[in-house]
């Protein structure tokens, strides 16, 4: 009996070790170790060779004095602040239309629109496409001479601007549009799921109290889905800070750079140490962003 028990324990641990060995090895080697090394290399002058000298905070002071870094950071921060605002507002608007814009029978407080699942399916299209492909498509849409937008402006007698080729603020607007375009559908699905979970009788009570649609939205719906909005806000902000592929592929003339693209170019130049220190700053920024949103978005949780 004792032997049997000991054998079974041994057998169990052998199984556990066997099943965990490969996943853990892959994960430790290719995910954990690069993350840890990144912190170390950000304090070195590593340029890809065998030697990496520890240089303290030199990379960070270099970054502080690097105008191109500040330029890229400005773009990234603008994107991280403005893109979530546009995207979340549009997402909430459409989600509210879908969950409560329907024709409703007498006495029914709220009804979804007909064909709501059709809308959600189509809106979600951009989410399932590769960002690189979205960037190529929109690069064509914004193309100065043969793009969809300038082609349309041409038809009504306007000369469209060079969206991605010249002016920095025009390129920024273009990137913002693409970023919001590709995420709105995601938030429509997310928010309509959250709105769908709100019990009907709360709406009925609001209706009995004489609240209109707008009032109902701001006094009932929004407070009840606030947790989802906050998470969505953080997620969208980090996506905007990360918008690497869209900018790299869509704005090849490089009138506009976000910090990840700036990082990638330093890596391409062989400035490995400097590039990783930019990565560390990006990590700190996204964590700070999450904390700030958590703080300012903190409200009492409503249970229902």
């Amino acid at each position, binding site marked *: 009996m004792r032997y049997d028990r000991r054998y079974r324990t041994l057998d169990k641990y052998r199984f556990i070790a066997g099943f965990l060995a490969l*996943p853990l090895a*892959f994960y430790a080697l290719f995910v954990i170790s*690069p993350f840890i090394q990144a912190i170390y290399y950000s304090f070195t002058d590593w340029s890809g060779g065998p030697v990496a000298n520890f240089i303290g905070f030199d990379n960070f002071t270099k970054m502080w004095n690097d105008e191109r870094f500040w330029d890229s950071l400005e773009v990234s921060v603008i994107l991280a602040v403005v893109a979530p605002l546009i995207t979340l507002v549009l997402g909430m*608007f459409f989600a509210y239309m879908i969950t409560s*814009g329907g024709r409703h029978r007498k006495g*029914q407080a709220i009804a979804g629109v007909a064909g709501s699942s059709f809308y959600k399916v189509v809106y979600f299209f951009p989410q399932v496409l590769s960002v690189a492909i979205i960037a190529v498509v929109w690069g064509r849409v914004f193309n100065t001479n043969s793009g969809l937008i300038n082609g349309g402006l041409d038809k009504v007698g306007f000369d469209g601007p060079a969206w991605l080729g010249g002016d920095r603020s025009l390129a920024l607007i273009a990137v913002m549009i693409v970023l919001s375009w590709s995420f*709105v559908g995601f938030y429509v699905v*997310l928010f309509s799921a959250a709105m769908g979970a709100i019990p009907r009788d709360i709406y009925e009570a609001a209706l009995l109290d004489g609240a209109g649609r707008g009032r109902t939205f701001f006094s009932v719906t929004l407070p009840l889905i606030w947790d989802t909005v906050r998470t969505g806000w953080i997620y969208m902000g980090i996506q905007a800070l990360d918008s*690497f592929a869209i900018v790299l592929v869509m704005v090849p003339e490089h009138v506009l750079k976000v910090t990840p693209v700036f990082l990638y170019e330093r890596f391409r130049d062989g400035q490995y140490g400097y590039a990783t220190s930019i990565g560390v700053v990006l990590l700190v920024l996204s964590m700070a962003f999450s904390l700030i949103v958590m703080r300012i978005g903190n409200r009492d949780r409503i249970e229902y």
Partner: protein
Amino acid sequence: MTTTTAPRAESADTSRREGDSASGATLNVFSHAFLVLWVVLAAGPLIWVALTALRPSVEILSDPMGWPTSFHWENFTNAWTEASIGQYAINSVIILAGSLTGTMLLGSMAAYVIARFTFPGNRFIFMLFAGGMMFPVILALVPLFAVMENFGLLDTRPGLMIAYIAYSLPFTVFFLTSFFRTLPTGVQEAAMVDGASHTRTFFQIMLPMAKPGLVSIGIFNFLGQWNQYLLPLLLNNEEESRYVLPQGLATLAVSQGYRGDWGALFAGLTIAMLPVLVVYAVFQRQVQAGLTAGALK
């Protein structure tokens, strides 16, 4: 709803109800108008790409808004053979066959052990995996490149597969751990009593039971890995014939500027988008659930 029988101000109540259902109809038209507008905006650029793929390159340049007058299917054959879209697609399929199998196998093995067994370090290993979801991949960019180079895995197919697997593990393990926890313990115990080994129990009993969860996370990983851009750009950038689909198209978009075969580029984009949209249309419920769960992890 029996509220209309409420004694207070019955006439006022019903009249407001009528007014309200009328405004419901107006609102209905109003909301459909906005919703349809976004349908046009969301699908418009994609439909434009598909339509333009059927037009000759010269016409695309002179009149970007035009309709296809005759169908130029040769754009598709040009894209497939001359612009190497066929090669890129095959590369993507090969990489995905390896990486998706690996992700599902390793992910479910780790998740099963974490979810169903008590052992020292269990919680720590779970947190280790889950923690990986918080860090941006771009932070690991440079050291990952060096690690891959040291192992001789740079610009190789197994190397890219391993990278896809490793970076898909955090969310896969996280998702499947919570899924395995919800499965009943009785069946597992019965299998053990009947003398099945742990491994056998896993493959023959637990995996089939976890099928709904495996399907969800499988589609999630399929889309994520099929759409990868940053990892191939970093780890698979040496030889153009080895590019995966999004990477190849992005390169093509830049080089087409010099060669001018726009028809092939639009055809290539259509070829790249269509299978993903079809998979999505079939599994839309799981995809939407999976991706939104991914955001709310």
